[in-house]
């Protein structure tokens, strides 16, 4: 069975500080991977997706970047956080056209 893990579970960060969020998928080789952002009480906005190692497509950047350093890992980062980056970040993987989501990372930027 496939499992998806996101880290950290939650973060409180200062405006202007850097950020790195991680996502790992186990039990699935060469998965398509995705990053989403969800404002509190809002809908999901797709940010990035990756179909292979080293290749990332941007959907909406929001002053963030993503990388896929390994087949099972997807990283979301920025060098300078904005207040508007606060929210819930979800990673997902897909199999046969269906996306399956991780537990998410809650980020509060102060």
């Amino acid at each position, binding site marked *: 069975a496939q499992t998806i893990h996101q880290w950290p579970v939650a973060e409180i960060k200062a405006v202007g500080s850097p950020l790195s969020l991680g996502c790992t998928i186990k039990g699935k080789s060469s998965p*398509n991977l*995705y990053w989403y952002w969800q404002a509190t009480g*809002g*809908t*999901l*906005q*797709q940010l990035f*997706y990756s*179909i292979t190692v080293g290749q990332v*497509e941007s*959907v909406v950047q929001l002053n963030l970047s993503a990388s896929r350093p390994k087949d099972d890992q997807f990283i979301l980062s920025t060098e300078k956080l904005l207040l508007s980056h606060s929210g819930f970040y*979800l990673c*997902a993987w*897909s199999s046969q*056209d*269906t*996306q*399956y*989501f*991780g*537990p*998410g990372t*809650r980020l509060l930027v102060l």
Partner: protein
Amino acid sequence: TQTVSQSDAHVTVFEGDSVELRCNYSYGGSIYLSWYIQHHGRGLQFLLKYYSGNPVVQGVNGFEAEFSKSDSSFHLRKASVHWSDSAVYFCAVASGSFNKLTFGAGTRLAVCP
């Protein structure tokens, strides 16, 4: 550009009632539709999907949805809800590349005991 509309922001029912959560989309080509559930503070759980074939699709926990091309709709239904069905439900659409998923605004379902 594909769009998804969930017209009801909030729906409140009693346990044992039936419920229908509405989803309308706009896109002219082949389309992939799905429903997800999000309990408070959690990630999304997949409920069901439609791409082709029988327009009525069955999902987990007694949920089903019906695709209508003429109405551009993919409404979610459950015959008898339980308090644990209280959550936010999201409709999502993808077209062409299944890598780009667009979500509706979500419908918050409250099931009263």
